[in-house]
């Protein structure tokens, strides 16, 4: 069954430092991978996705993610964290047409000034 894992419930990083939020996916076919962000009391906002092509994907708000097939990972990164990046981040996977996105449990990012 398709699934994603976000091994960290919480990530703390100092403002200005690089950040990484981890995501791994189950091995089954060719995955389509997504990252979403949820600010307090809000819905989910799309950040970026990997479909095919370059393994490094750039998205909104300076975020990027690298698809690594050998490690079945799709970690979210940003070179310099902002306090405003503090939010809940979700990784999601989809394996085929007419299937819904399957989400990880989310990772809460706290950026400390």
């Amino acid at each position, binding site marked *: 069954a398709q699934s994603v894992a976000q091994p960290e419930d919480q990530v703390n990083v100092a403002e200005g430092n690089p950040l990484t939020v981890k995501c791994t996916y189950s091995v089954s076919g060719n995955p389509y991978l997504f990252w979403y962000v949820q600010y307090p009391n809000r819905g989910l906002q799309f950040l970026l996705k990997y479909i095919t092509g370059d393994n490094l994907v750039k998205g909104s708000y300076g975020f990027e993610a690298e698809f690594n097939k050998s490690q079945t990972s799709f970690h979210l990164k940003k070179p310099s964290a902002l306090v405003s990046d503090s939010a809940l981040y979700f990784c999601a996977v989809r394996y085929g*047409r007419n299937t819904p996105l399957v989400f990880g449990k989310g990772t809460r990012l706290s950026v400390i000034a």
Partner: protein
Amino acid sequence: GAGVSQSPSNKVTEKGKDVELRCDPISGHTALYWYRQSLGQGLEFLIYFQGNSAPDKSGLPSDRFSAERTGGSVSTLTIQRTQQEDSAVYLCASSLKTVNSSGNTIYFGEGSWLTVV
């Protein structure tokens, strides 16, 4: 509208009552999804509509939950005889038709916060 619209934004109901949650997807989006987000939990898939195809109901947790989509646009999620464990945020999302690409982005509404007391 510009985005996925959900109503009500907040609903408090008594245990045992029925509730209806409404979703108006982005214009032109033929795929519509309902997810549930409980406190401290991830997103749980509930149901998926794609055009005129039969909906994927595999995520509905019990027969108290049902959803319909009229005219291929607006959808209503109905919870009958609500229980306290139904308290959660119910998120609706929509996307373009996925026949040609499973990579179409799914866009979410702000959610309906349901509290069963």
